[in-house]
């Protein structure tokens, strides 16, 4: 077994950095598998109820703000791009680039959350927070324009799914923002370079995954049913 001078980041129970990196990457992928199954339960509920109440779902969906949703999709894709560049900069040893890209990613993540908050607030104003989540302000679908064949009481089904899915997605974004802040802190102190950057890499995997969830949420929640409007 070769014994190179060991890197300060090498943990005692690994033979070398390569093994450590392999374990870290595999670990993150396995974790993402659990995330897929976690969101999968909600996608299943969505599929069932949407096929059951297509008109009610379309009516409710059309009440969401398409411009805000589209902008947010763009923001998230851009943040994935900057995240990928941050990893690239770490791999190629560009320290400034790494810090700038990480900071941009963080900022874009926060922008996404800000826009999401505006959307949530709009729903609050329209009495569209489902159930008795807000005391004294029960759900009321009268503001939603109903397409023919849509039953009013089923509109609420769409909104709990909307809030459950985008809410869980937002929680993941918040966790991602926290994660990236830590990474940014260490990056600023020059911890990551071509030899050792696995933490940047696997945070990137997580960030891209959260982006992918949104790539599905956007059409499912905002778009399907738009064409029925006219």
């Amino acid at each position, binding site marked *: *077994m070769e014994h190179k001078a060991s890197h300060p980041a090498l943990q*005692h*129970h*690994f*033979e070398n950095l390569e*093994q450590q990196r*392999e*374990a870290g990457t*595999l*670990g993150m992928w*396995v*974790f993402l*598998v*659990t*995330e897929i*199954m*976690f*969101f*999968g*339960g*909600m996608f*299943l*509920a969505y599929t*069932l*109820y949407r096929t*059951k*109440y297509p008109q*009610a779902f379309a009516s409710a969906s059309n009440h969401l703000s398409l411009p805000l949703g589209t902008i947010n999709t763009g923001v998230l894709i851009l943040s994935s791009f900057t995240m990928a560049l941050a990893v690239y900069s770490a791999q190629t040893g560009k320290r400034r680039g790494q810090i700038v890209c990480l900071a941009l990613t963080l900022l874009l993540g926060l922008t996404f959350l800000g826009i999401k908050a505006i959307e949530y607030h709009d729903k609050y104003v329209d009495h569209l927070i*489902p*159930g*008795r*989540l807000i005391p004294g302000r029960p*759900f009321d679908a009268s503001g939603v324009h109903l397409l023919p064949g849509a*039953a009013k*009481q*089923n509109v*609420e*089904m769409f*909104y*709990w799914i909307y809030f*459950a899915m985008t809410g*869980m997605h937002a929680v993941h974004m918040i966790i991602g923002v926290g994660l990236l802040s830590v990474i940014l802190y260490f990056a600023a102190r020059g911890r990551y370079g071509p030899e050792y950057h696995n933490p940047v890499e696997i945070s990137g995997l997580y960030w891209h995954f959260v982006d992918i969830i949104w790539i599905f949420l956007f059409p499912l929640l905002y778009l399907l049913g738009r064409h029925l409007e006219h």
Partner: protein
Amino acid sequence: MKAPETFEIPAAARVNYINAQYGLKSWLLTKDHKRIALLYLGSITFFFFIGGLYAMMIRLELLTPQGDFLSSTTYNKVFTQHGIIMVFFFLIPSIPATLGNFLVPMMIGAKDLAFPRINLLSWYIYLLGGVITIYALLAGGVDTGWTFYAPYSTTFSNSYVIAAGLGIFISGFSSILTGLNFIVTIHTMRAPGMTWFRLPLFIWAHYATSLVMILGTPVIAITILLLAFERLAHVGIFDPAVGGDPVLFQHLFWFYSHPAVYIMVLPSMGVVSELIANFSRKNIFGYKFVAFSSLAIAVFGFLVWGHHLFVASQSVYAGMIFSFLSFAVAIPSAIKVFNWTATLYKGSISFDTPMLYALGFIGLFTIGGMTGLFLASLAIDVHVSDTYFVVAHFHYIMVGGALLGYLGGLHYWWPKISGRMYPEGWGRFSALVVFVGFNLTFLPQFVAGYLGMPRRYHAYPPEFQVFNVLSSAGASILGVGLLIPLIYLVWSMRYGKRAEANPWHLPGLEWRTASPPPTENFLITPVVTWEAYEFAPPEEMQVIGKFREGTDLDAPIIGKS
């Protein structure tokens, strides 16, 4: 490094994982998988006894046909809490988090699990979940049954559903993290020469278990979250008034909870494979079949959950599919049973305590599995669903299978874990008491259930009393049988005979290091040049350099201490 050399056997390594550091802090902040295993061992034992107390209350109530000891509401809480504690806080972590945690790195020749800090975190998460659940029990309890079916749990129950659900939700993450750690460790940290087909079957079983943990647990997590959401805000998720469907809850719940029964029994099967091969001193019959049947169980286990919904207004067509698939899942389990039996054939069997448990496992698991097939037949299930037949079925597997495997493994590896021998006479005696007590408890329940006694009621028609008296008597015997090991194992930690490195004279890697092992398990990284369960005759052992005249050790210690 070349092939392992032979060294003098140290009575005990001077510095081992237990005496390497002292003080409470050195335990609570440890990253050593062996110490974390002990932390888990203590906590699951604690929960096991709480669960046991509830069991005793159930059996006491059912001694007479009248509901005289507990009111119906209290009784509902007692069986619910028994189920929640035993399933989520004892059986699911039992073998993986204790024996698995201790042995997975050691059996593959690694210094630790891949993520030691996450391993410690998982224990804290487990504790947090446990504390919240205990809070729910103390604050007023839960009465929904461990299955939390909607709409009772979301709308009608007046008990602490959300707190208990939160506890289970949180402890689920500890199970996910354990599974994740095992998978990564087994993939990336095997010692040089430890190929996949040289892995002990215990490792294969844990790999398969970990798959179930990471693929199933997230689904129960989201299910419980949605349940809590619905209960808090009544948004209609499982509420037909708004358009929701309560049966969706059952689908999601059983998507996890059927595979979860394999989280409980697969590790136990891994233990039994070790015990059967090692105490027959033979290579396991059909190693690859046993190894792959673990994976097959992990996969097929996900295809059968609908057999819990046969009478829940599930479509008959889906019922037929699930019934068929449930029959299919029995095949890999049967393969294991046949291979174990074939391994025994012409083996030099010794009936030490662990082996007694292993043999008990085979018999009881077979009964449990076969009655599962009864239940998986659509027409029979309509008759016996929600009766004591079902209760007997799953206890045969979860107690007769999972618990016996756990106890067998605990005795088998006790010398390695504690560095002390347990008293063999007491061990065999209590194994027999457990076996007798268990059968007396649950065999009558098959009959009562088949005759129509429903589960989950505190009163019953008098004609069922004879079965219930037998069952309660058996439960007391079983309780005593389980207390004896607790006493002598604790006793042996101090007063037991010191264990050698390899008290059973076996070839596995974990026996090639001191008892108890040093902090990083091996003093130098082992290089594996032998197959799993390689019991060569002694003359051959000498030729290949693994046996030394004058020592009673078949396998060399790796590294000096």
